[in-house]
């Protein structure tokens, strides 16, 4: 019997000594591990993953639009609560460092910067093989640098001082340091200078895949960065007493950067034809769905966030951008429809914005930006609407009898009650509704901004598969003009602006040059107003106002909502996301911005 014990004992020992380590090895068939990034394919795919963030930034409800569009002089949040409300009205109680839009921007940026740092740091070790040529490796490196600059610039515009790192982090670090804003600008500028040459020169040359960054995009962004930095150095503490930029005040440097901005923007404009880039011949064409990528028809675009669900619904994605600006037409028409969109009614323009679109008879940009007519999709018994005109409450009957006939009309200008009645009340067929600016209620009644509408969706509530143009050559002209103005070169400023105005001119109602402005017309306010006409809702307004130090004054002057009363000096910078502050548990605490 002792033999049995010995046999059992040796059995125990055998298992213990021989096999237990191997037997406990893990077997993984579900995911890829980090070593893959070192391969040529991994290098390419690392860059792909960074591009993918553009889909979230420009396509998601929690993306960048809430930071850039409402809460400015151009747009406000509708009365109804939406996800951007607290931020866009600068809500004194609810807009805090916990805000989701800020933490989304923050994490979208840093997650991808880490990947980019890995690529840029290790580029020399990435093998050149069947998957990757040397030229491609250089091109992707340039694109990686562009993306790093793009992400850092987004951060630095919103938050000021930020953490800047150019090395890959593979440690679970619980500490972080907030670096001076200028350190970020150094990285951004160097990256963009490199990217201008390393990237393919233009989206429209060399068969570059739509969606990639190009040298032209890098140059455009660099112009904006230089211009922004010029403004940073240009804010004296006497003129901008509560602006965090004033500690950098240095008029010489300001001039130097304005000059750099001007040079690079005007050079890009000059080079455009050789790069296959040009302004679209009419303003409306820029936002025509037919010209969207990857058709290659939009020669004005410089950098694009791709969605393209209809092209490939496995890889493509959809954005909610098409819904935000749609008014509440459904209340009267009894239903939504695909053409007119899904009635989020999140944002609507301030009076300032309507007024900025002056000269509508000759300037096509109002009609290309706003919807004026809605057509009945089903019969409605109708009723009465009333609103105040010239101090009197006026009532109008409405009724839809003919499907396809006019249902709602937003003329865009005020009319007297009699004019309205003459137009619709004695009509055969539909007695359609007319909403003049007197009726705009900041809630559901306002004209829809049509730039992002998507009329090729399957269902009226569907999101949009339209790609979004992040940078376009039109803005390069405005950057050049702004830099010229800051260099006291109003002649050139007017020259660049007039090219855009000429493009926007209604060729049927005016003759060439009729919309032109003179050098003496150029002021900062004029440039900002021209940007409204050209770039309304194109995700740059908040940054434009912050750059030019006009956020507080213009919001107080022009925002029709409560943002006007709520905005404070601290709002010139966004609060550092609370998550970041909470999670720095080692080393010095992560500082918050002043006032938050």
């Amino acid at each position, binding site marked *: 019997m002792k033999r049995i014990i010995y046999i059992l004992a040796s059995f125990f020992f055998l298992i213990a000594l021989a096999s237990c380590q191997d037997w406990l090895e893990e077997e993984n068939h579900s995911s890829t591990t980090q070593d*893959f990034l070192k391969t040529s394919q991994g290098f390419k795919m690392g860059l792909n*993953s960074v*591009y993918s963030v553009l889909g979230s930034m420009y396509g998601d409800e929690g993306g960048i639009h809430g930071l850039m569009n409402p809460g400015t002089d151009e747009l406000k949040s509708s009365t109804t609560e939406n996800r951007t409300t607290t931020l866009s009205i600068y809500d004194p109680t609810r807009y805090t460092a916990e805000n989701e839009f800020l933490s989304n921007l923050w994490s979208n940026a840093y*997650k991808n910067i880490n990947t980019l740092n890995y690529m840029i740091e290790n580029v020399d070790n990435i093998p050149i093989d069947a998957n990757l040529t040397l030229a491609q490796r250089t091109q992707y490196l340039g694109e990686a640098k562009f993306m790093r600059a793009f992400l850092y610039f987004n951060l630095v515009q919103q938050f000021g001082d930020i953490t800047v790192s150019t090395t890959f982090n593979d440690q679970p670090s*619980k500490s972080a340091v907030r670096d001076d804003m200028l350190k970020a600008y150094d990285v951004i500028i160097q990256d963009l200078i490199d990217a201008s040459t390393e990237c393919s020169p233009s989206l429209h040359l060399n068969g570059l895949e739509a969606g990639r960054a190009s040298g032209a995009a890098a140059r455009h962004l660099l112009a904006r960065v230089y211009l922004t930095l010029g403004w940073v150095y240009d804010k004296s503490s006497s003129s901008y007493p509560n602006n965090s930029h004033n500690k950098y005040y240095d008029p010489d440097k300001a001039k130097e950067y304005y000059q750099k901005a001007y040079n690079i923007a005007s050079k890009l404009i000059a080079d455009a034809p050789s790069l296959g880039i040009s302004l679209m011949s009419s303003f409306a064409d820029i936002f025509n769905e037919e010209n969207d990528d990857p058709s290659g028809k939009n020669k004005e675009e410089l950098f694009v966030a791709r*969605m393209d669900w209809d092209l490939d619904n496995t*890889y493509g994605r959809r954005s909610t951008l098409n819904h935000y600006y749609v008014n509440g037409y*459904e209340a009267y028409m009894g239903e939504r429809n695909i053409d007119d969109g899904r009635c989020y009614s999140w944002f609507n323009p301030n009076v300032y914005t309507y007024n900025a679109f002056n000269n509508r008879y000759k300037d096509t940009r109002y009609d290309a930006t706003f919807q004026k007519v809605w057509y009945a999709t089903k019969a409605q018994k109708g009723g009465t609407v009333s609103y105040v005109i010239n101090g009197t409450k006026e009532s109008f009957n409405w009724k839809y009898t003919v499907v396809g006939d006019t249902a709602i009309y937003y003329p865009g200008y005020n009319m007297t009650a009699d004019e309205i009645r003459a137009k619709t009340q004695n009509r055969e067929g539909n007695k359609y509704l007319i909403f003049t600016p007197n009726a705009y209620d900041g809630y559901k009644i306002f004209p829809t901004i049509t730039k992002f509408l998507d009329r090729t969706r399957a269902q009226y509530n569907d999101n949009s598969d339209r790609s979004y143009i992040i940078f376009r050559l039109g803005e390069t002209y405005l950057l050049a003009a702004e830099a010229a103005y800051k260099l006291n070169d109003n002649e050139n400023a007017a020259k660049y602006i007039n090219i855009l105005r000429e493009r926007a001119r209604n060729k049927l109602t005016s003759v060439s040059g009729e919309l032109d402005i003179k050098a003496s017309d150029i002021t900062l306010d004029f440039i900002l107003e021209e940007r409204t006409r050209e770039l309304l809702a194109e995700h740059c307004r908040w940054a434009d106002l912050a750059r030019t130090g006009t956020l507080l004054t213009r919001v107080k002057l022009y925002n029709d909502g409560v943002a006007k009363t709520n905005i404070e000096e601290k709002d010139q910078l966004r609060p550092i996301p609370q998550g970041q502050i909470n999670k720095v548990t080692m080393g010095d605490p992560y500082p918050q911005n002043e006032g938050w």
Partner: protein
Amino acid sequence: MSTTKKKGISEFRYLLGLLLALVLVQAAFPAIAENNLVVQQTEKKISGTVQDGSTPVIGATIKVKGTNNGTITDLDGKYSLKVRVGDILVCSSVGYKNQYFEVKPDQSTYNITLEEDVEVLSEVVVVGYGVQKKSDITGAMVNVSNKSLKQAPVANVAAALQGLAAGVDIQMAGGSTHPGAVPQIRIRGERSINAGNDALIVLDGIPFSGNLNDISNEDIESISILKDASATAIYGSRGANGVILIMTKKGAKGKPKISYNGYYGVVKAINKYNVMNSKEFIRFKQWAFYNANTNKYTGPDDPEIMQINRVFKDQTEMEGYYAGNNTDWQDLVYEDGMTMNHQLSINGGDNKTTYNASVSYYKGENNYAPHSFERMTAKMSIDSQIGKNVKVGFSSLNGYTLNNGENNNPMDQALRASPFATPYDENGALINEIPGSGGQVWNPLLDLQKGAVIDKRRALSTFNTGYVNIKLPYGLSYRFNGGLQLKYETLGQFQASLTTKRMGAQNRSYADHYLKVEYTIENILNWNRTFHKDHNIFFTAMQSIQESKRDGNSIEAYNYFNDNIQYYNPSPELALGAISGGGGFSKWRIMSFMGRLNYSYKEKYLLTATIRSDGSSRLAAGNKWHSFPSIALGWNMMRENFMSRQHVFSALKLRASWGNVGSTAVDPYQTMSKLNTNKYMLGSSGVVGVYPSSVPDKSLGWEYTETINLGIDFGFLSNRINGTLEFYQQKTKDLLLGVSLPITSGYSSNYLTNLGNTRNCGFELNISSINIEGDGQNRLLWSTDFNIFTNRNKVTSLGKGVLKDESNNLYVSKDRWVIYSLEADGLWQDTPEDRALAESYGYPTSGNSSVIGTIKIKNHHVDYEADGVTPKAKQVINDDDRVFLGKRSPDFEGGINNRLAYKGFDLSFLFSFRSGGILTSSMHNGWMNTMQGTYNNLKIDYWTPENTNARWPKPSVSGVSYKNLLARYDASYLKLRSISLGYTIPQHFSKKYGIESMKIYTTAYNLYTWFNSQYKKDGGIDPETTSTVDLNTPPTRSFIVGINLSF
């Protein structure tokens, strides 16, 4: 890390060597023991065999009464002993009645047949890797018999355990009311933060990782719940959260006995949710619109606001209101359900072989027709004695379950649907959108159409165990245990386009399936020996391996041109929209070595020492192995001589244990640096991107819990009152903690590491008493089981210098689930004081954004000027004003179970209770209570200038903040969980019909709950939950009638 690795291994080998050395040294003892016996003065030598029916009883004690002279039987049941004529000998063995006989002068062979002692058998309890006499137990454990479990007509044994065992907290996660939901079991609270807190379930001796729904309650014989380290340390790495040992029914010797057990009953909602009717809703809408537009209108009665785009969203909504519609959507959606259970079993066997087999069917429903749970099981077990020394057994539990509507919650839509709308249009067809909802709420009746919404989870499981037990010489025995568990589960979902799930978008299907294969192999060596008469040693050594492997795929598809395909054929020919797939593979292994020594001296002093070493594949190389020791002492005071002089106690035992147990409940592959993928379009083609998503801890190791337990088992009045009192403290160290890193690190996913400590301590008391000691027939029998227990949890460390981890809600020296939040301080009222205060914060007190009528936040943090003394004129309410408001776990909880029996009738009723803790109602902070007037709302008491004492703020279309602060309630309750009345037909009567026994009974389950009046006022129906009450179909109660028959 390499040094740690070496240490782990060598420590393990050292312990293993020690165990083996013990085995070998002990083998030499018997010789010495026998020598001692020879020396004794005797007059006569007797011998014989002790038998149990036909098989020898090994280890039975033969002793001269009143002396220490005795011996035990050998492997063949034989004994020999020197005695004097006239001695009274007593033969005893665990589980048998004592046999007495007198030594006669002319007889030297005494063959003894022992009778099984049913009463004593009940005193034998199942412990890990064996059974033990209750009086010998040194650990903290509770046993629940199937009699108690049968009281509740519920789907699974976890639900049946509610309120029955001290230290065992069983609650439905989120207050789920689905008939197939399995409640969450927590033994002595929660200790782990990132790893699991689920107890290890051991079914018929083999770790069971399946779903308790797979097992029929009727097949369960008994449950032992092991709570302290002395009891659980033999499960080493998986014992930290307690162990639930479930034994299924085994065959018993006798002629075949056929039994039928069944019940049938109705299930009804306890109540409807309290939402607004038409009249209340229009008033609410008027206020909500006016409150956001006070500058434009005169008040809620201003006729101007009763227009489209103002109070009404569209014309149909307005017409619906003026038509006087008042639809109660809940009435249309609910329908009483039923529940039933049938089980047919056969049990029997002869001296060699016993068997038990059963088939059963269970069905449960609630009051929403698409929700149901069905189970079919077939069970079989055979135990067979082969020859003298070998016993083999095999058991197989097979189940098929069908769970409908798990992910099909109708409430969000049904409760938000406007009372102004009607479900049918003028042609009698179902409408789609609810007017006024902006397309966000669709007709909830759409989902009830046949085939419109399908959510069907089906699972086939088989759990098979087998053993071979071989008796070896020298008191040794060897046991091989094998377990094989297979599970195939598949989920099929389909949502038609015109349903609340798709709201007109393309129809969608989703299907997934997985296969899990898990096996366990154990080699166990037992050695039982009594020497020097009073020293009893029971030694167990075990080696085991376990592997679990799971893999599966899923497929999602959109836009079938024919709804009838459902989810069965997601091919591009039929599903014209997107089709996408997914899947995964995961595998883990555990290897273990265990040794346990039970030693008792005169059954008076007890010692249990255990050590187990576990290696887990899931941890980092070098830290895979850990050893878990435990030691426990017991003192049976009743066996001391001095106790024989007192008459107060009839039982008294003191126990103390210390031990270390672990938890490896992390997902596999956590120590690898993984890349995540995403997708994008470049050019005309899709591309895939990869990015580093996690930063792994390359030295991830074990989380372990150090437990101290002190227990007293007591009995008074000849054990008419008996009970147990336990005190414990558990320190959990090297927590597997998901630390969230600052996002500037580049990683947004948590970094899993060993960091921080938690502590649980508490006491548990259970008392069983026979209040009226009758025989249950002619004299009333009334017995009560009562248990009460408490657990206090505290996070004691989060790493050096770290006092809080807000993103994980962890605060040092606070409960793990502490609620750290702003505190509501009523509502801002239109008083000069409140206005002044609000204005000092910079809050508007007039106009559209006036704070009057909104929730006021208590300023707990005074902001000072730079001097640190002068309070700032403008105080700010922000995160600094958060305070600790309490915790979600209760102060104490427990249950009282009463049984009365008289003349064939028996009545039992079970109360359970929970006191303290904060309940969070997701319903009151969710879509059901937006207070914006867009959708129908819970009927709450809201603020208006006339109703300033309201609990809830003024409604507003612009949104209402801080509702979450009001969505918290006292979680205390007392619940009459079940009440059951049965009648056993007298045997003399039933036997005439060939029926051995017959009982009929009726039970009301979840009959009534007493709870917080504020929660009741706000429309809460049942506060029972783990932490939050989610928006579920209303809680139900059931009324059943049942019958138990055996032939």
